[in-house]
């Protein structure tokens, strides 16, 4: 291990190594494993001191951390012990910040265990304290640091594996919060400051999922909404080959164990947690395009091109591919061979058996729209290396941020930023000097307003990995000549406003006395929705079956269809009532609204979720007696078999007195061929009775073959017969709507589905005619989940809104790069073998891993001899031409949620804002929610029960889009919409309760949540 170095910046990119002269011992203690370094004015004398962390399986005195106090003459004296900071833990990094707002700097120290604990039954260990592995908080008490971890509520269990730490006022309450990344199974910590010297760990509240093998972290506002966002890094490679070679095999049992042990959902890719401003975060790394950067260490969010938006730099690399699967599976052969050859096994051979792969660091340009573009090549970061810590800093004071990158077994790199030389951009550098002991104003906030744009930064230099940046803040300002104003909130919460600031300068601002206090801004606009306590006390427990045990190669589970809801005024008392499906512990019930706005369940039990699953329901008058009857569609996946009683739909006849009775068996034809997705009543033949479309979702066990969809014709008395249509075997239908598209007075049918386009069937006297090609330029095959029909642009014509997969997953598709799905019983063993291919870096690769392939089709075990052998295979290498020719093929080209605007007899594609693409959209409600006379859209969704390597798609908290009446929509942020819907939305209805409008949302494994709409 090399020595520490202290370089004095002589200007003009010249540096002088002053390590030896500065202080004996500054080069680091021999035998100790040197980790993080921090510069801070620990004693408040105006001079930067240096704190160095140590780790390693060595004597604890060898790894005591060191504090070098700056003497002011380029000399330092080591005083860790005196200050109480000579901690002997397995330290990673320290941060100095003022957690108790008392004006001096305290210290938080992250540590790690040197032993990975494999046994996951460790709920009990979480209360243990490991004095060397646990993180520590030290309070500065008159210049002496005292360990207050326990009192402050800091986790110190032996599972701690702290690799990164960043400080920010995450919830914007004027107090510093702490984010700690943990490698392995221990989840990251987000410690929210309670203002009383204690913290509460709130990761489960704030985040829906986190990185699994978390490394470095940065916190900064990357979308200029003045809220700090969070980046954490992990190890997922970008390219197909390394994914196939290194990605861990999915293990549902160990994932479940993590959930059961309250470790939360953790996935192996970088995370970008977008701060929604309401103490929730939307994880959008995959939408943003920075989720896969291989074995990554140090994230840095900073404006490298001075365009006013923070870009992202990521270091990566490791000596060896430790998780190489050929190594894991086949290294054992080497040991046996050595034994048979009677040769000793060398440890070095073991290390050497792991492949070495060097690859470049990543740099991403901020596209100003929540996404990033890879600029590795254009910005000069294409050399392969193994990097670790890094800092950004304007080393040559030329107004752009340079980068210093540490490398393993190689000298550090300095990247001189040439962007100003090239583009002559503007910047503003700001250095704050606070009163008192916190001389560098750690924790201060700076807002720069310019030309309608606002940028926000905090003076919190500890970010990234093992590193500490400068306390000078750097703001890029594009081609502007001035900043309109600069607002500073000092650590003591006093406020200062500077106006009309010219650019291209370094502003040094000293804190004045008697600054005005910052008053916490409150939201003046009333939110559009207000969450109310549950009006119907209904909890939902989901199916526990794992659909991937039945067909391991599907992407999604199909079992989880509940809670299903349907509304109607069943007793004609003028109050809306609600059907809610049950779960394994309770039957479905019809909840009848009472005059006081409360609900009482009717006597009838509907459905038994132990023998079948309700997947859709609809009230309509089946027998023409004026009372709404209830149609129950059966579906799901689970262990259901097609053509068995569990998939037969049911009709319940309403006598108008809250009595529902199961209609005679002959009322419905045999509906048990498939699982159903939707029930859409409509008098399609204009004969005065209500007929039904029932969409077929999936055949359990036979994904992705086309299930049956049904058009049921009513004889007027509630007896239904199947009418043959062109859409009865159209694919996996997810939703449908009736609308008179051609204005001939007959309702036409719009259908969407998984690998099915949005299709239009025109209802003619002679039957339904597929006119999709007439209404759409081209069919838009997608992963459609939902449909709504509404006139969003006020032209009197129905437009279509269609919910899709979104952009926030590993699956990215387009017309040029479609998702492909081949399926057949390739090995003739009675099971369908579905194989997805998706494009990665311009080429279509199978989604299936070698292990999954070998497990699905045994003869494949003979085909690819190693993971390496398989790593580059495309579908054409897996199967012969003949096999593929004999297989079925589905494709999808569109994954975005969108409107199809009815314009001159055509449906014109109009993609909804990027926030609508954060997640799957399973329910769409079109309404003028803000009462401006224009149609708005409420999009609900999320899909968490997916393949583990796909992960939970869960960044939608209720996406409210404000319509401008012309077909354009604008995202209304979560604090303003008032929506904070967590979990997978399975159903949603608007319902009037006691005269007020509510949205009731059915969430899987949660139950019902109610939001009251603001009135006009």
């Amino acid at each position, binding site marked *: 291990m090399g020595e520490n170095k202290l370089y004095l910046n002589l200007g003009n990119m010249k540096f002088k190594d002053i390590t030896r002269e500065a202080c004996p011992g500054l080069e680091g203690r021999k035998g100790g494993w040197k980790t993080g370094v921090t510069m801070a004015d620990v004693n408040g004398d105006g001079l930067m001191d240096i704190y160095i962390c140590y780790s390693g399986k060595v004597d604890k005195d060898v790894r005591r951390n060191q504090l070098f106090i700056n003497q002011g003459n380029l000399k330092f004296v080591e005083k860790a012990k005196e200050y109480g900071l000579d901690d002997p833990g397995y330290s990673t990094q320290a941060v100095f910040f003022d957690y108790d707002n008392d004006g001096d700097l305290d210290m938080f120290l992250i540590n790690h265990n040197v032993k*990975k604990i*494999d*046994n*996951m*039954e*460790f709920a*009990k*260990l979480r209360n243990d304290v490991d004095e060397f592995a646990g993180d520590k908080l030290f309070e500065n008490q008159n210049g002496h640091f005292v360990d207050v971890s326990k009192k402050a509520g800091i986790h110190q269990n032996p599972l701690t594996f702290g690799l990164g730490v960043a400080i920010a006022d995450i919830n914007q309450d004027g107090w510093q919060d702490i984010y700690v990344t943990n490698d392995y199974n221990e989840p990251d910590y987000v410690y929210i400051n309670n203002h009383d010297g204690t913290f509460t760990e709130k990761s489960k509240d704030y985040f829906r999922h986190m990185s699994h*093998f978390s490394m470095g972290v940065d916190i900064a506002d990357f979308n200029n909404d003045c809220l700090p966002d969070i980046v954490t890094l992990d190890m997922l490679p970008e390219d197909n080959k390394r994914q196939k070679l290194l990605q861990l095999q999915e*293990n*549902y*049992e*160990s994932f*479940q*164990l993590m959930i059961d042990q309250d470790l939360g959902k953790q996935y192996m890719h970088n995370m970008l947690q977008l701060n929604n401003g309401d103490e929730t975060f939307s994880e959008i790394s995959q939408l943003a395009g920075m989720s896969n950067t291989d074995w990554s260490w140090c994230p840095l969010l900073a404006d490298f091109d001075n365009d006013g938006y923070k870009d992202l730099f990521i270091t990566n690399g490791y000596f060896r591919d*430790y*998780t190489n699967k050929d*190594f*894991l*599976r*086949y*290294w*054992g*052969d080497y*040991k*046996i061979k050595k*034994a*048979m050859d*009677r040769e000793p096994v060398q440890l070095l051979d*073991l290390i050497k058996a*792991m492949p070495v792969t060097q690859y470049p660091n990543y740099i991403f340009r901020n596209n100003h729209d929540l996404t990033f573009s890879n600029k590795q090549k254009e910005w000069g970061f294409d050399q392969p290396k193994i990097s670790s810590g890094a800092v950004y800093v304007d080393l040559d004071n030329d107004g752009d941020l340079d980068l210093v990158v540490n490398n393993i077994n190689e000298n550090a790199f300095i990247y001189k930023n040439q962007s100003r030389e090239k583009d002559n951009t503007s910047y503003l550098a700001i250095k704050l000097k606070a009163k008192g002991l916190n001389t560098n104003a750690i924790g201060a906030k700076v807002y720069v307003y310019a030309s309608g744009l606002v940028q926000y930064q905090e003076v919190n230099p500890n970010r990234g990995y093992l590193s500490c940046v400068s306390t000078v803040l750097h703001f890029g300002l594009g081609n502007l000549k001035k900043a309109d104003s600069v607002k500073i909130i000092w650590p003591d919460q006093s406020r200062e406003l500077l106006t009309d600031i010219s650019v291209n300068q370094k502003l040094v601002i000293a804190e004045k006395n008697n600054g005005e206090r910052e008053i916490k801004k409150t939201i003046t606009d009333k939110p559009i929705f207000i969450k109310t306590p549950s009006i119907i006390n209904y909890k939902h427990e989901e199916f*526990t*079956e*794992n659909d*991937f*045990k*039945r067909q*391991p190669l599907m992407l999604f589970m199909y079992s989880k269809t509940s809670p299903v809801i349907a509304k109607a005024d069943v007793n004609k008392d003028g109050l809306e009532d609600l059907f809610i499906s049950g779960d394994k512990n309770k039957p479905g019930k019809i909840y009848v609204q009472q005059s006081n706005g409360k609900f009482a369940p009717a006597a009838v039990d509907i459905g038994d979720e132990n023998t079948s699953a309700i997947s859709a329901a609809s009230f309509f008058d089946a027998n023409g007696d004026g009372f709404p009857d209830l149609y129950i569609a059966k579906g799901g996946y689970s*262990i259901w078999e097609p053509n068995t009683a569990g998939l037969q739909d049911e009709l319940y006849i309403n006598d108008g007195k809250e009595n529902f009775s199961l209609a005679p068996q002959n009322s419905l034809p045999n509906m048990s061929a498939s699982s159903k997705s939707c029930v859409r009543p409509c008098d399609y033949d204009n004969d005065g009775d209500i007929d039904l479309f029932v969409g077929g979702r999936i055949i359990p066990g036979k994904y992705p073959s086309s299930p049956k969809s049904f058009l049921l014709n009513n004889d007027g008395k509630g007896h239904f017969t199947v009418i043959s249509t062109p859409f009865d075997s159209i694919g996996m239908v997810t939703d449908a709507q009736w609308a008179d598209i051609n204005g001939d007075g007959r309702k036409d049918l719009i259908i969407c589905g998984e690998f099915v386009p949005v299709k239009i069937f025109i209802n003619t006297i002679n039957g339904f005619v597929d006119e999709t090609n007439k209404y759409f330029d081209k069919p838009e095959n997608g992963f459609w989940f939902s449909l709504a029909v509404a006139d969003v642009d006020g032209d009197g014509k129905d437009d279509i809104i269609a919910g899709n997969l979104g952009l926030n997953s590993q699956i990215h598709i387009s017309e040029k790069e479609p998702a492909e799905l081949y399926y057949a019983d390739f*090995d*003739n*063993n*009675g*099971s369908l073998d579905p194989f997805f291919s998706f494009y990665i870096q311009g080429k279509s690769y199978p989604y299936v891993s070698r292990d999954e392939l*070998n*497990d*699905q*089709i*045994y003869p494949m*075990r*003979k085909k690819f*001899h190693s993971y390496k052998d398989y790593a580059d295979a495309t579908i054409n290498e897996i199967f012969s031409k003949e096999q593929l020719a004999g297989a079925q093929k589905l494709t999808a080209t569109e994954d975005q949620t969108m409107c199809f605007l009815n314009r001159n007899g055509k449906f014109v594609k109009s993609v909804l804002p990027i926030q609508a693409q954060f997640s799957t959209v399973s329910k769409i409600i079109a309404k003028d929610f803000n009462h401006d006379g224009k149609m708005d859209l409420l999009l609900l969704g999320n899909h968490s029960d997916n393949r583990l390597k796909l992960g939970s798609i869960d960044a939608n908290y209720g996406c409210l889009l404000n319509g401008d009446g012309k077909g354009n929509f604008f995202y209304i942020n979560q604090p303003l919409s008032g929506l904070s819907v967590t979990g997978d939305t399975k159903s949603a209805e608007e319902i009037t309760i006691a005269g007020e409008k509510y949205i009731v949302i059915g969430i899987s494994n949660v139950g019902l949540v109610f939001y009251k709409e603001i009135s006009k």
Partner: protein
Amino acid sequence: MKKNIIILLLLYFQTVNAQNKTSPFETDIQAAVFSISKVMMHDVVNPPAAARYYAYCLLGSYEIVSQNDTSLIPVSKFIKEYKPDFIEAKKSDYNYKVAALYCILETGKLMLPSGYMLQEDEDEFIKQLKLSKFSEKIIQKSLIIAAEVAASIVDYSKGDNYGKLSAKLRYTPLKGDQYWYPTPPAYIEAIEPNWRIIRPMFIESSGQFNPSPLTPFSKDTTSAFYKLAKEVYDISKNQPQENINIANFWDCNPFTVSTSGHMTIGFKKITPGGHWMNIAGIVSKKAKLTFNNAIVVHTLISLTLMDGFITSWNEKYKSNRLRPETYINRYMDTKWVPVLQTPPFPEYTSAHSVISTASAAVLTYLLGDNFSFTDNSEVIYDIPPRDFHSFNEAAAEAAVSRLYGGIHYRDGVENGQKEGKILGEFIIEKIRSAGVKAFNK
């Protein structure tokens, strides 16, 4: 201590070399079987699947030998379902021993995932034949016969439902504290939960021989089950080195996972079936059996192993009992780790006990009781040889080793032994009535 082991190993290798010299390559069944074992180690073939591969690899060689030696009982006399396509191997213009050995390799080549690796062994075998007195014509003809028989056997194997396993529902851990859950460190998914559908050899069905009911689950510290777990725990504390040696000797875990940070390594060993196949080789040599009789021993053991695993696996996924490691970690000691790594399938009964007891019974029938031998099967894993006075002694040690290893409860071991004994007796009765006689009588 380490030095002693090295000296021991050196001694062993000298002995092995000496043994090898007395055993001509063209009749060395043990070597051919070990070639198969090596590929299975490479592929990390699980224990029940390994037994199946051994069985089919040996069936072809038995077929060839039995057609050339009418004193051998035809397979169809003791395996009801044995109906391969007609195999004609009764010709005089080839060497049936050469064909029988080559057939083992060839069947492995056709069936095993990395069967291609056996090409090297086949080439070496042919090279040796050419260097010896065998004529080109005899060699060629022998290889053709071997390949024909192997192909026919592979065809026959396709009817045993193995290919249907991937169409079956995978294992989802049952809800309930009493049920098996994957174990540390890798939490590997349950191995072969549907093995019961595999067509057996001697027995009628996977459920023909069921063990006695297991001790009912209880968390109550006064319960019988708690005591069973406590026994495993107590044994693990202050265990004599000899117990640990025994546990390691019979570990036979094809893939022991060891982690260090982000690095995971799999250490490999032959399976329990592989171990008994090697014992078959050792004792065939010790008994100086003729080649033909040695083929009988190897084949009958491989078939016994196949049925043993089918029987055992049926019960494992009927009872779905949790492993001692899970129970002890939950209710006694969070940090307890067994001596052996817990294999990835339910506990009851101990399959090693079943197959060891059944194999010992069959070996005893064929070679007699009180047959002493030195088992050096584990030397390549740095584990010294062990001496046994009888097959049953070895089997009993294999069974109790699972208790010492901390991966089975006593009732899993003992009821597994009983299950294996009944199975072994059934097989003996079946072969005896078919006409297979003991060699020493």
